[in-house]
């Protein structure tokens, strides 16, 4: 059981705390309910670029000194951006919790970015885009799949954004973005580790409680068109061995359907006794094959990846991949497959909450999207109530009767145009 406490600051900011005194450090996590899907179609990548800019200094923290001050006080920081939210964390020795909150909150109290930092971080992000996407084998998967799965909504462009948008951002764009989204009502502050609850509340009130709240309503609508027909594309990439990827648009995170699909995914592909491992890897067709579910706010993506062994063709894998999915839609899972997956979920849960950083991550996520931190304690139990009828029905609904996107990655010269 993870114990936690919640508190609302005077400006409405939501504070979540969990004391874990195994080590004398504190994690301060600030998670903002804004991600790439909330961007304008002609200004993609601003959420992620802004994440970089949060580390460049602020009114009372000189340019380039955020991490200098943090590192020199025994701290460390990082952040990530998804389609739905942006999350920052810093760790500090517990005696320096006030310093951590001062550093973190100063960049929220007033617009923290200057032109020079913006221009440097644009370059850094463009190099990140090359390293993670353009120059990496299969680095275009997110781009190629999401634009087909989500033809209309903000999920259709990649988190990192388009190069021409990144290059064109002006300081005024960044300021507008900050004022709109980086406000207390759009943020959950989570503090874990070696804390005293009362002290944490007092310090949070001091440093975060006086931050201005914005008024602009944030448009969170999600409007997507049905996928009319299954599509299959061949994508050339700088790779030697081909791979096949199937994508299904499925229920958003947190629903029963979502957890059932996660159970199905775990059953099909975790461990060397799983169906997928046996049919595709042990049989010598694939070096790596698995399904996974990426949970998102308004929809999730169920993916089936299969990387081919030398000498095997896409056709060798295609039929087997279909057979596995058809079988689960028609017959569901076997009793022992359900037990195996539930057991694996339970083991993984304990290893996740051992780390105060991952614990802060989870609590922030549950609070931000479900307003329910206790999901961390209830989640494992949710898997235990599903029987095979409901599993079969759900697989049928999303996998059998749903239109899918198939991408066949083959060796070839990848264009350098984008």
């Amino acid at each position, binding site marked *: 059981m993870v114990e936690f406490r919640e508190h609302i600051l005077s400006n409405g900011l939501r504070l979540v705390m969990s004391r874990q005194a195994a080590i004398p450090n504190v994690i301060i996590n600030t998670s903002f309910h804004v991600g790439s899907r909330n961007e304008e179609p002609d200004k993609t990548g601003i959420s992620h670029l802004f994440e970089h800019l949060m580390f460049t200094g602020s009114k009372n923290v000189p340019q380039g000194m955020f991490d200098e001050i943090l590192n020199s006080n025994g701290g460390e920081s990082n952040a990530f951006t998804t389609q739905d939210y942006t999350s920052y964390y810093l760790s500090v020795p517990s005696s320096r919790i006030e310093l951590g909150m001062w550093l973190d909150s100063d960049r929220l109290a007033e617009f923290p970015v200057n032109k020079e930092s913006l221009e440097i971080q644009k370059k850094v992000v463009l190099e990140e885009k090359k390293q993670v996407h353009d120059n990496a084998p299969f680095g275009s998967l997110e781009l190629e799949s999401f634009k087909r799965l989500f033809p209309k909504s903000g999920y259709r462009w990649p988190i990192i954004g388009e190069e021409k948008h990144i290059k064109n951002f002006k300081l005024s764009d960044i300021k507008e973005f900050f004022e709109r989204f980086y406000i207390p009502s759009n943020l959950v502050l989570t503090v874990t580790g070696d804390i005293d609850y009362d002290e944490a509340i007092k310090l949070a009130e001091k440093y975060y409680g006086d931050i201005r709240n914005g008024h602009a309503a944030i448009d969170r609508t999600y409007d997507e068109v049905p996928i009319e027909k299954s599509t299959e594309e061949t994508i050339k990439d700088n790779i030697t061995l081909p791979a096949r990827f199937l994508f299904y648009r499925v229920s958003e995170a947190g629903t029963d359907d979502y957890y059932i699909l996660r159970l199905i995914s775990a059953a099909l592909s975790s461990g060397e006794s799983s169906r997928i491992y046996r049919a595709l890897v042990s049989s010598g067709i694939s070096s790596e094959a698995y399904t996974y579910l990426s949970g998102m706010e308004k929809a999730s993506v169920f993916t089936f990846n299969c990387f081919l062994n030398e000498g095997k063709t896409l056709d060798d894998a295609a039929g087997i991949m279909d057979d596995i999915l058809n079988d689960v839609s028609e017959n569901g899972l076997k009793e022992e497959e359900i037990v195996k997956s539930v057991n694996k979920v339970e083991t993984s849960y304990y290893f996740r909450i051992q*780390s105060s950083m991952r614990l802060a991550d989870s609590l922030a996520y549950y609070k931000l999207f479900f307003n329910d931190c206790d999901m961390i304690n209830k989640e494992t139990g949710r898997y235990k109530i599903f029987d095979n009828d409901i599993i079969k029905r759900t697989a049928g609904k999303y996998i059998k009767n749903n239109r899918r996107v198939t991408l066949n990655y083959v060796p070839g010269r990848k264009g350098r145009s984008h």
Partner: protein
Amino acid sequence: MTDRSKMPVSGFMKDVQFPEYREHVLANGMKVFFVKDDKFPVTTCRFLVKSGSYFDFFSNGRAGLATVTAEMLNRGTRGKTYNKIAETIDYNGALMSNGAGYDASFLSLSCLKKNFTDMFGLVSEMMTESVFPEEELSQKKSQLISSLISLQDEGAYLAERAFLSILYRGTPYEMDPDGYPDSVKGITRDDVTAFARENYTSENMILGIVGDFDEKEIIKSAENKFSRNGDDKSVRRYEFPNKSPKPGVYIIKKKDAFQASLQIGHAGIKRGHPDYIKTHFLNTLFGGMFTSRINKNLREVNGLTYGARTSFNCKKYAGDFSIETEVNEDKTGFAVEEIIKEMNLMRDVPVQEEELTSAKNYITGNFPLQLETSNNVAGKLLSLELYGADRDFYNHYISSVNALTVDDITETAQKYFRPEELIITAAGNPGILKKQLGKFGVTEIIDKVK
């Protein structure tokens, strides 16, 4: 409004002790380390065999043999088939990993406390009674070969692999622990069986158990499983050359690259070297943290890369120092100039007291995070034993770091940063890289990394 103009005064950092552990020696001499942690109902056991790919060198060039052997451990024992083992592990919800590096092979398994006794029996069986079935071996090999082929598509892998092969040429550390497509193809069941027979012996193995467990029960089970002693393993000594090979520029062709993948460095020190802490500290300041000199220069000031880091890789018998980064290909030459400039600055100009203190605090403050999970604690304990390091190493670690002086850093930099010995490897567009890097020395173009 809160006055934010003043930085809050910092408190003292608490002293952190390495978690308590108990050591037990089995009747056959095998060492077992116990770290009790009952915060969560889970347990991890980690077997370490003190032989890794270093020993491939003595097996007729069968690069990848230690890895294949370790990865075959769950694929069949005298009493159980691969399928049976996989079913049991998965049914118990256990998480297992097995593989090999340069100096050791390992098998690690984590599961719920209630399943641990059964699982421990099973992994003990894998460590002592594996039979390496022919059919499973051939499948494992084709899987590994395909992964190795795909690795060749990654610029960072090509640069790193070329760098290590050139630096360690002719020595037991030259080859990739995972091997190469051709060398893995040649591995036979006899090779694997012989490797296991010679290396998976009780006196060559260490075991770490962390989490919530019954110590007596584990000792009883281990005494029972590991009662046999292996054959005496002859120690394979190799005299490592004292100096770095010829410096130069090596360009690995990757014509569709969007960036240049760089790996630059020279020889370093082995893990047991008395200057280990000094080089570790120097590295933190130079390229081991976000605000290190190298990352600050290449990323935060010049915007040439998403990130750059440096490391002293200390193996059991030798080591290397290197900088790795992926940079804008049109600025590759400039990036290398800046790296060399930073190395020289470190040698020529004493660090400011403030920078020294900052790096000390960084290490001190972050150290507890490395001890937070029981897996990390087990890993650190077993490494000390593997490398023959002082058992109290982690208890003295923070005080040793905090005792370092400005002069120590300058001396260490002068001794272990040697710009004139740099081997520069870069994977990317050969036309661009040749122009960018030609000025740094004799340039060789490499078609394929092996």
